[in-house]
């Protein structure tokens, strides 16, 4: 079982072969599914906790504070302590809730998150599913989450939850368009919806450089719409602490609340990972056309490091938005989408098509 940090294809293949030697094909499938599931679970739990910590630190830095400093060195263990606290809390079911839907909602949101994670290419060969409609699959699956949000708000028997869920529904349905259309812009450039092909196509130049102006516009639109998709500030009027206490997850406590919380942060990761995969070259190192020595130095950095560096950068940008801009009103959110992002997006698709047709790209 050779281990190569630049290419995981051989490792996963060897694992599969050695499993097949010792077990029946059915057992092999079950064992492989279990291993992948455990990996994703661990990754979501640990990375989610880290993102919560990072968010608190970044937010504090933007506000000239220091953030958590007491639990562990520089507060590193703070979110773990918070998580243990959430695990020990009582699961309260308020009077008059629709019990089945109320208990189902957190799982729907978690399932949507897990499903969207499945196609993300972390490095060469580190991709669970490689559909030929990968981009389409991500946009389709990530909109399942809104059903969970609507169910959570509806079943909670709480007017604030319902208002929050309805706002969230209106917002996500509108911004789904912008996300899809900005991805369509890049699909025109890439010529494929398969994520591995899209990443492979950025070997020489990342699509944001290759597609120059239209790609940059699409990237900005994707970031804005992606932030709205994940219900994060400045588009967080679904939870609007000051008006709706916490929106659709007001009535949830303990681990069910933690599910919503984790799903929100992992969704932010998924948006950042999609932005990185489609615009910023995925796990591909930074290459400049003819600078051979520079390209070799960049090749030396493992793809996993590249991927997480870029994802970290995009997540930082999204956090920057959240802690700078004030929350938009409902009408402002819909105006931004239908009067600005959507027309710009459509014109941008036309522009990108012209660029691709005339081969006016790098």
């Amino acid at each position, binding site marked *: 079982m050779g281990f190569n940090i630049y290419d995981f294809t051989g490792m996963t293949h060897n694992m599969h072969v050695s499993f097949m030697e010792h077990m029946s094909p059915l057992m092999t499938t079950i064992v492989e599914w279990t291993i992948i599931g455990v990996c994703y679970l661990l990754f979501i739990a640990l990375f989610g906790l880290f993102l919560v910590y990072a968010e608190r630190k970044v937010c504090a830095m*933007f*506000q*000239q504070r*220091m953030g958590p400093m007491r639990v562990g060195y520089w507060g590193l263990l703070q979110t773990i302590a918070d998580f243990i606290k959430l695990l020990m809390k009582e699961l309260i079911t308020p009077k008059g809730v629709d019990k089945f839907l109320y208990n189902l909602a957190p799982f729907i949101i978690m399932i949507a998150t897990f499903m969207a994670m499945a196609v993300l290419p972390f490095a060469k060969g580190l991709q669970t599913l490689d559909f030929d409609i990968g981009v389409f699959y991500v946009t389709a699956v990530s909109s399942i989450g809104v059903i969970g949000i609507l169910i959570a708000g509806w079943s909670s028997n709480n007017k604030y939850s319902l208002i929050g869920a309805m706002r969230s529904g209106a917002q996500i349905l509108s911004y789904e368009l912008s996300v899809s259309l900005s991805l369509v812009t890049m699909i025109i450039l890439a010529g494929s919806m398969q994520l591995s092909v899209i990443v492979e196509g950025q070997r020489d130049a990342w699509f944001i450089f290759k597609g120059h102006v239209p790609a940059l516009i699409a990237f900005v639109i994707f970031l804005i719409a992606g932030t709205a998709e994940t219900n994060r500030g400045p588009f967080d009027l679904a939870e609007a602490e000051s008006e709706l206490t916490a929106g659709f997850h007001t009535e949830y406590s303990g681990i069910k609340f933690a599910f919503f919380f984790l799903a929100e942060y992992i969704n932010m990761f998924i948006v950042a990972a999609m932005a990185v995969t489609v615009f910023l070259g995925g796990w591909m190192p930074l290459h400049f056309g003819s600078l051979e020595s520079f390209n070799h130095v960049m090749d030396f950095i493992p793809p996993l490091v590249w991927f997480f560096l870029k994802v970290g950068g995009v997540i930082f940008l999204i956090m920057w938005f959240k802690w700078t*801009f004030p929350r938009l009103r409902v009408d402002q959110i819909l105006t931004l989408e239908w009067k600005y992002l959507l027309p710009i997006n459509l014109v941008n698709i036309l522009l990108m098509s012209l660029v691709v047709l005339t081969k006016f790209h790098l």
Partner: protein
Amino acid sequence: MNGLFEYIKTVFKGVGTLLTGMKITGSYFFRPWKHVTQQYPENRETLKMFDRFRGEVIMPHNENNEHLCTGCGICELNCPNGSIEIISMSVLTEDGKKKRAIDKHIYHLGMCTFCNLCVKACPTGAIIMGQEFEHAVWDRTKLTKVLNLPGSKIAQGVKE
């Protein structure tokens, strides 16, 4: 056509204002040494409070154990919640005249709201706001303080 021009102008103006906001928060983020948070118990030795911080009312005395308080009672009148009690006495001056002087300037720290009105009202500047803030005690009678030190008297040349 004019409408389209206006539309594009709005987009660019909007993006511009957003960037202005991000520049400001970014300047906070990338200058962590400007943080205002104090790590209090750890930096207790080096902690310096700010000039305008109102910790408690104090009456400064000079090296001859003299203060500036004339015992006029204006601070007592100005205190909204009766935290200050002035007990005055009369003393004989050198030329045989009777004159009012402070006997006890009683300050109830437990009732004080640190509104600064007594300090503003004091005609001679005898009381000021100190920077001490660790006021926790086990017995609340300790919160009643006499500000003028025992045996102190008014400094020379303080006009009534």
